[in-house]
């Protein structure tokens, strides 16, 4: 019994993910940079993000980009997303040859900053539609993943 206990390796203490608190978040429009993306995808990412983050109830208030009321919140954090890669894919191709071709993919870097400009969180996140669904569904998948990422830190 003692010998068996001796061979069990000591468990490494798991480093906890740092958690932050903020009563409000402001969501900025996706910075597309040099990546070519149709306007509807850019604004769908933005609108889906607002919808998902609001539904998650992680923050007391979710402000849109440019909302003047956000300036008065002392512990405001801001979510920036910058587009890394985009492949529109094709719903028709997906339905003809699922998984093999036609996937819609959108990759962004999600960055959360505090009011003093300090980076609290920075991670690459991707959204995709592989088989069923419309191309814009990738933006919903992306918004869900970013919200999950926020839920792990706030």
């Amino acid at each position, binding site marked *: 019994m003692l010998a068996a206990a001796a061979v069990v390796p000591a468990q490494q203490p798991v480093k906890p993910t740092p958690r932050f608190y903020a009563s409000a978040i402001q969501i900025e429009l996706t910075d597309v940079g040099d990546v070519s993306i*149709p*306007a509807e995808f850019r604004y769908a990412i933005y609108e889906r993000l607002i919808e998902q983050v609001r539904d998650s109830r992680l923050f007391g208030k979710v402000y*849109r*980009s440019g*909302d003047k009321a956000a300036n008065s919140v002392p512990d405001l954090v801001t979510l920036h997303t910058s587009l890394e890669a985009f492949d529109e894919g094709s*719903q028709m191709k997906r339905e003809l040859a699922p998984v093999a071709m036609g996937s819609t993919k959108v990759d962004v870097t999600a960055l959360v900053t505090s009011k003093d400009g300090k980076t609290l969180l920075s991670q690459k996140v991707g959204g995709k539609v592989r088989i*069923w669904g*419309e191309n*814009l569904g990738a933006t919903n998948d992306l918004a869900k993943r970013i919200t999950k990422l926020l839920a792990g830190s706030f």
Partner: protein
Amino acid sequence: MLKALRTTFALIATTAAIAAPFGSGKALTLLMRTKVDILTVVFRGPDGGVHGAIFALQKGQAESTRTQLVAAGAHISAPQTVLKDRTKP
């Protein structure tokens, strides 16, 4: 109402496509595909917040709708040539 009808029709069509024998569902979905025009409208709310609205219009309606919006004072950010054929959003 129109959106609800479209959703119901899409659900029936998808179910029919899945249930169709010998893989004919794939051909069925291709035949049932409807072309739409996508029009993206961006505006600021009274508090200054940016809003984006994406409209799926019947084929050929986006250009006339955009012309009406421009006549009412809207600004265009993309040239006409950017409008292209799309299937459902």
